[in-house]
């Protein structure tokens, strides 16, 4: 792809095995290109390789075979490590374990401080990052007193403050309640829209993929499906075989089709689903 922010070429990865045991590959030949400015959701059950894949995107894990390129830079190139990490920011699952400071603004400032950004510029970036995640009111708060969703938005702000071209969320919504999950999703969609930041969201929550530009489904260390949410969610049988559920709306339409209804499968919201059913019922 011409304008790819992240590109993998025949990427394989195995975790080191215990002595005397064969290493089990977590990734078995992945070729992907993440388009600049896109919103990509990577789905898969636990152990499908989705989280391992995410960790190769900024060199937390280095390929055991093949290559990963970030903005044209090979992640295996040690001299480029800082440049790579400031290009692809990473947010992890447990917000508690990625917040460094005990004042919100100090935490958000951590990355730009590391990068040697001048003081006035750090101030600007911190305020802008907190505005983007809608946490401006909490500048001087102690992070440990915030809710899960708020903490995770601080973690996101901490990454945004590096002004990365791409942000990868490695199951960053898994530990949150529905409210927190919605807050985080709203924040990253806004980031994608307003700043044009590429977003790669790793998750096993199907409904988080509804508004994505592209959905990639991982299974057994390979890309099993790749397409728009509509294309992916209509492949009901395949998804189930991979231990994933489909949204209830799609499940309903799938059942009705089997019952002989003439309905499409690609209605993802309740409203769209009702429209489809209503139209078919009136035929």
């Amino acid at each position, binding site marked *: 792809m011409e304008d790819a922010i992240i590109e993998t070429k025949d990427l394989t990865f195995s975790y080191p095995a215990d002595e005397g045991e064969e290493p089990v590959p977590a990734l078995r030949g992945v070729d992907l290109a993440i388009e600049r400015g896109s919103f990509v959701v990577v789905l898969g059950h636990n152990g499908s390789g989705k989280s391992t894949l995410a960790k190769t995107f900024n060199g937390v894990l280095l390929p055991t075979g093949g290559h990963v390129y970030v903005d044209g830079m090979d992640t295996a190139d040690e001299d480029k490590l800082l440049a790579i990490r400031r290009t692809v920011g990473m947010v992890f699952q447990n917000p508690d374990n990625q917040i460094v400071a005990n004042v919100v603004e100090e935490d958000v400032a951590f990355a730009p401080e590391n990068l040697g950004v001048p003081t006035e510029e750090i101030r600007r970036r911190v305020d802008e990052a907190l505005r983007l995640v809608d946490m401006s009111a909490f500048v001087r708060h102690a992070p440990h007193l915030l809710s899960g969703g708020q903490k995770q938005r601080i973690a996101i702000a901490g990454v945004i403050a590096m002004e990365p071209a791409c942000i990868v969320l490695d199951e960053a919504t898994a530990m949150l309640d529905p409210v927190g999950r919605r807050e985080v999703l709203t924040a990253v969609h806004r980031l994608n829209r307003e700043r044009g930041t590429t977003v790669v969201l790793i998750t096993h929550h199907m409904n988080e993929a509804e508004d994505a530009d592209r959905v990639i489904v991982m299974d057994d260390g390979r890309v099993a499906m790749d397409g728009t949410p509509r294309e992916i969610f209509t492949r009901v049988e395949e998804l189930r075989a991979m231990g*994933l559920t489909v949204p209830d709306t799609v499940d309903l339409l799938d059942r009705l089709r089997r019952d002989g209804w003439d309905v499409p499968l690609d209605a993802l919201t309740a409203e769209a689903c009702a*429209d489809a059913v209503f139209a078919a019922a009136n035929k």
Partner: protein
Amino acid sequence: MEPILQIQHLTHTYGVGTPFQRSAVEDMSFDVRDGEFLGVIGHTGSGKSTLIQHLNGLLRPTSGRVLLRGKDIWAEPKKIRDVRFQVGLVFQYPEYQLFEETVYKDIAFGPTNQGLTGAELDRRVREAARLVGVRDDQLDKSPFELSGGQKRRVALAGVMAMEPEVLVLDEPTAGLDPAGRENLMANIRDYHRNKKRTIILVSHSMDEIARNVDRILVLKSGHVLLQGTPAEVFARAEELLSAGLDVPQVTRVARALRERGLAIDPAVYTVEALERELTALREGGASC
């Protein structure tokens, strides 16, 4: 029949006499029926976690009472530990409480504290392990070698092995993938069916609650907002939505269809039921 648990005018206030004083639970009353599968739903901050810690006496009410089989659990404060064996509580992310050298020993921790030994202890441990799908050959492993999902099962078994009359589960499927969630819920349903014991399931997920429980208790800022069967509760979707809570996706679709003039039962909340409704509607020929 007498309810197994009665919560009467329960109030819990944190930080009494400080500027941070606040009531997490306020004048809450409800009954838990013997043998039922009760779902408790509410936002973070609705008082759920404060409430459940009163059921086994980890917290003491500021005012009000908790009755277990008609007896105030705080009647004899020295015997509060016995209540914890009768009302088993599994916290959120329980895998972080594992500490023993082997899975077997960890599951045995609760029953050993109960004073059990020998054959009865062994039976309890093995049965609990089987109930949650922990294999025999895993019993001698270190719990720290297991995967996240398996650790969760071991922790659950550790409470089930106490054979409590009431099992309280706080977000047992949090953080698991869809297949893991469904597997674990299937284990819990089996336990309920086979053991005929009361289960209280606390969950954020309306869909999970809708699919599993007999009765729902909806909490909002320390109060009971609604209670009833899933059909009764979801039929009042407006109240749930205006309280900022979710309703199952199917309920949303059913509401949208009613708005479009289709005669769908407002109490429908599962895919299967809505499919049946729609099929019947079509066969009846009364589309609009």
